[in-house]
């Protein structure tokens, strides 16, 4: 543990020997599905006639939106809505790309031919694309309007020497995993159950959502994930809607159905981030103390409020005050529906959207107060002696050393020299700027935070929701082979490597001795409602569950060894694939012999010891209760910290932004594998740079999708993303079993605002330059 072990996963992946969903043939004879999608942003489906499609040779059948509405229930939503969301639209299409029907055929080519043959008559309806206009008036499209107040914000603003007022808009963007979504659905008419093989990524709360839509008891919806998944970054959470759609198609047509999402489908309807507009007011004393915050937030979740939304809006609610000591804040949160595709998880999940106004306002304040941003941050950072720290909105930051991280970042960046370089460049007429961001990076989400969308009195009527737990099992077979089974649905993060490291340390073997099974099967895996790969939860509860399960097996091995070696179990040391008696080098037994005896000779087991060497364990994050009656929430089980410093140059003639240097210092607690940690930081950074510099899902005023392919949607590539210089300051978590905090999303949260602050500084602009910082937009702001 803690070693920078090479990833076990890479050998097979590099040889093309990975097993992704479309490599598998779990339901032989599956027919292929294609989805008819709305070309309109908002239109009534007057008539949908599949007669001609059904005449095409090779077409198995068609499932229409009307049949979906008959055969399923709307997906349960986190708050009441008058716009029910089904797996396909029956009578009104509300976004470009919304499913209207499914064609199933002998292959995808024929299925797409049949799409062309379906006659649809539309009656166009008014299109709503302006979130602010929707938020302005009550109606079905204003789904939620909640106000929160902590401390005494009015008093804080009354004593302010400076109030910064700005508006920040975070663009809708996405993560475009290399492998898109996929489902192979097989409805079993024998027992009326659905088995779906899918590259779903969790949270498995959505298994319940899908089962409810299908009117199935949970045990009759069996989800099985493939061993490999080609990236997700959040977005494959929403494949559950396709599980329902393809499940209904399989039920109707009596054949297994395979649907592999293509890139156009993915970009149109596969899920993207929310776009958020925040009007922020930040009150400061003359010495730079941040006294109070007011946030007026409008969250555009697209055409439907679809689970787990509006979670993006509430994920950060325990960390509203960021890294700062400010106690007085007021928030208004409005959730609006527009005629864009419904949103879903997307790396950073609320963090980028939240820190854009917070850290953006800090940069504006620093300029107006005549302070260096680093000095302003230092004046407000939570002190190292204040941990554990409870935020005004109820979040708990268990450990940290924010000033220490700031010092590390300033030293790594060589801040004094960089500032002098910037000033010299400016004197030469160049547009060079420095930006920074300090962000608290939550990990291990509380399943109950989204219930904040409902007022406390309404929450009280429902079952309370809280916590975040994960399961794992460890088994040793008669030959001494060790299998770890997880439910964290890795998509490239390297969970198997770390799980092997964790289990190996506990069992006294090498990581190479451990076989890790990453497929999840809801019929047999040790999973929980919160299982999955999201909210940077693996190093906390994912690895924690492996640790607990391995510890249980180890405890049993010690009992067995103690009986053979005639000592007490606590004197047994597991090391070098042997069980040894501490302080007695001559007394030991090999692990293989020990487990062989346990399996082959259960009669010889010590009294009271159960046969079997197989333990299932669940690990829950500590201190994650439901929200209280005053809207306090411990939204996340852990909170890391990130300080970014960046220097950019804007080319005056073209508006192009060049990153001259980027420094990112993290406190992710104990690093379980520094090599994988570096990968997470670089990956999170790449995603943040994409949002900052170039990526935005664009719609026209009529709701037309203007970025339907990766040609129009300029996904950041390695050519666009510099390599940050990174540092780590480890303050171990007292709350997670291994002392780790998540780190997969921090730079996604920090990079957009750090880069925006740097470009704003470079241009000497009074108001922040908006995202994305594309050449055309930046050029328009050059003085």
């Amino acid at each position, binding site marked *: 543990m803690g070693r920078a072990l090479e990833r076990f996963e890479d050998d097979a992946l590099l040889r093309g020997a990975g097993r992704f969903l479309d490599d598998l043939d779990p339901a032989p004879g599956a027919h292929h599905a294609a989805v008819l999608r709305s070309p309109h942003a908002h239109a009534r489906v007057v008539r949908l006639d599949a007669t001609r499609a059904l005449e095409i040779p090779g077409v198995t059948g068609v499932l229409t939106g009307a049949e979906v509405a008959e055969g399923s229930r709307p997906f349960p939503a986190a708050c009441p809505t008058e716009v029910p969301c089904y797996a396909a639209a029956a009578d009104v299409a509300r976004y470009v790309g919304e499913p209207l029907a499914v064609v199933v055929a002998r292959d*995808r*080519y024929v299925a*797409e*031919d049949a799409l*062309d043959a379906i006659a649809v008559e539309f009656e166009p309806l008014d299109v709503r694309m302006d979130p602010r206009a929707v938020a302005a008036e009550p109606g079905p499209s204003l789904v939620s309007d909640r106000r929160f107040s902590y401390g005494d914000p009015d008093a804080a603003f009354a004593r302010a020497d400076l109030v910064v007022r700005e508006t920040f808009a975070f663009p809708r963007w996405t993560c475009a995993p290399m492998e898109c979504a996929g489902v192979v659905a097989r409805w079993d008419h024998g027992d009326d159950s659905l088995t779906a093989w899918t590259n779903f990524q969790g949270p498995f709360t959505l298994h319940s959502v899908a089962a409810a839509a299908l009117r199935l008891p949970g045990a009759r919806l069996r989800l099985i994930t493939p061993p490999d998944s080609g990236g997700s970054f959040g977005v494959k959470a929403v494949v559950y809607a396709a599980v329902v759609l393809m499940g209904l198609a399989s039920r109707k047509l009596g054949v297994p159905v395979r649907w592999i999402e*293509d*890139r*156009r489908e993915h970009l149109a309807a596969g899920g993207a981030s929310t776009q958020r507009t925040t009007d922020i007011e930040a009150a400061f004393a003359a010495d730079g103390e941040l006294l109070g915050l007011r946030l007026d937030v409008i969250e555009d979740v697209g055409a439907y409020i679809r689970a787990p939304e509006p979670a993006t809006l509430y994920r950060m609610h325990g960390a509203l005050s960021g890294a700062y000591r400010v106690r007085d804040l007021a928030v208004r949160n409005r959730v609006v529906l527009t005629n864009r595709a419904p949103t879903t998880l997307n790396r950073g999940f609320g963090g980028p959207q939240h820190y854009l106004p917070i850290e953006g306002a800090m940069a504006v304040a620093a300029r107006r107060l005549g302070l260096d941003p680093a000095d302003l941050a230092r004046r407000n950072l939570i002190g190292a002696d204040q941990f554990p720290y409870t935020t005004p909105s109820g979040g708990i930051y268990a450990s940290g050393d924010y000033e220490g991280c700031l010092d590390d970042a300033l030293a790594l960046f060589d801040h004094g020299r960089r500032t002098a370089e910037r000033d010299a460049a400016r004197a030469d007429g160049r547009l060079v700027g420095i930006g920074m961001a300090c962000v608290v990076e939550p990990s291990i989400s509380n399943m109950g935070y989204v219930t904040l969308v409902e007022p406390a009195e309404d929450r009280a009527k429902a079952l309370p929701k809280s916590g975040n737990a994960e399961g794992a099992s460890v088994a040793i077979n008669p030959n001494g082979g060790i299998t770890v089974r997880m439910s964290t649905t890795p998509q490239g993060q390297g969970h198997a490597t770390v799980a092997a490291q964790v289990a190996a340390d506990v069992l006294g073997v090498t990581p190479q001795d451990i076989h890790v099974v990453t497929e999840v099967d809801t019929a047999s895996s040790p999973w929980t409602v919160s299982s999955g790969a999201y909210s940077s939860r693996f190093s906390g509860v994912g690895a924690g569950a492996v640790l607990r399960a391995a510890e249980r097996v180890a405890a049993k091995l010690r009992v067995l060894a103690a009986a053979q070696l005639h000592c007490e179990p606590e004197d047994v040391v597991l090391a070098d694939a042997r069980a040894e008696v501490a302080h007695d080098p001559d007394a030991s037994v090999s692990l293989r012999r020990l487990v062989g005896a346990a399996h082959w000779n259960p009669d010889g087991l010590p009294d009271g010891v159960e046969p079997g060497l197989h333990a299932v364990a669940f690990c829950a994050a500590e201190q994650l209760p439901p929200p209280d009656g005053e809207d306090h929430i411990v939204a996340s089980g852990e909170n890391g910290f990130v300080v970014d410093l960046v220097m950019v140059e804007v080319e005056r*003639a*073209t*508006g*192009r932004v060049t990153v001259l240097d980027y420094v990112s210092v993290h406190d992710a607690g104990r690093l379980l594998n520094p090599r994988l940690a570096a990968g997470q930081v670089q990956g999170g950074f790449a995603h943040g740079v994409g949002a900052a510099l*170039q990526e*935005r899902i*664009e719609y026209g005023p009529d709701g037309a999708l*203007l*970025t339907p*392919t990766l*040609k*129009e949607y*300029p*996904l*950041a*590539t390695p*050519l*666009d993303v510099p390599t940050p210089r990174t540092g780590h300051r480890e303050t171990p978590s007292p709350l997670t079993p291994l002392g780790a905090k998540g780190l997969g999303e921090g730079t996604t949260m920090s990079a957009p605002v750090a880069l925006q602050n740097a470009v704003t500084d470079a241009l000497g602009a009074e108001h922040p330059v908006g995202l994305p910082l*594309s*050449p*055309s937009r930046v*050029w*328009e702001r050059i003085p």
Partner: protein
Amino acid sequence: MKPATFRYRRPETLDQALAELGEHGSGASVLAGGQSLVPLMNQRRARPAVLVDITRLPGLGQVTDAPGRLRVGALVTQAAFERAPGLAGRCPIALECLPFTGHLATRNRGTVGGSIAHADPRAELPLALLVLGGAAEVASAGGRRTIAAEDLFTGPYESALRPDEILVATAWPTTDELPGQAFEEVAQRHGDYTIASAAVALRVEDGVVAAARVGVGAVGDRPLLVPEPGAVLAGRVVDEDAAEAAGRAAADAIEHPLADIHGSAAYRRHLAGVLVARTARRAWERAVA
């Protein structure tokens, strides 16, 4: 993203290929590297009834060095053209624009002829060919003809090729005529959607510009040859002032710049001027070096 049904033909000779086109007319599409056509077919935005694969045709895969010309066979890949011996000396504008043409992987299959025939108003090779005053050599069952680059590009993705014609080669004037050459572009992401591009080719006599051809890309419905900056440069030393004047003249000459999510009309006009000024300077420096 699966193509609609099409018939596939892979003729072994040019005559067979031309016969296929003669038979199927506008229902047929010519397939070479497929880097533009196949994605369009997969999206069903192109639905040829017949696909005529010309990759087996003999004699279209060579770069031939002729006096004052490089003759580039239609099937020469963009990557092969980039590696053609002596390209830096003979046709530097091509060498400079090719790295912007898609990505290494697409250049390995994408052909020079395909890029010219595709007539993407944002593409690099059409602009370079236009500025050099090159030409396309096309064949049909009725014979061969040469189309000057100035007459070749007629609109977005539209060229003067008739449905029964195949582009068999492009002719690239070498530095003998216009030795000072430069190309530059700005894209949101390298290798993709050009926001604006510019190319300049010029000749210097007696210490001043004797002839200059200037073109801009991605600002109109086709690559544009703009005479105004050339007139500005004529008879002058291309110092910073002259280059900027040429840039301004180019920007002013663009009538209705494209506007899309990657760049406003005002930005494109400005950028075209900036890039013309830069390429004019670089072309001058090379001409007098």
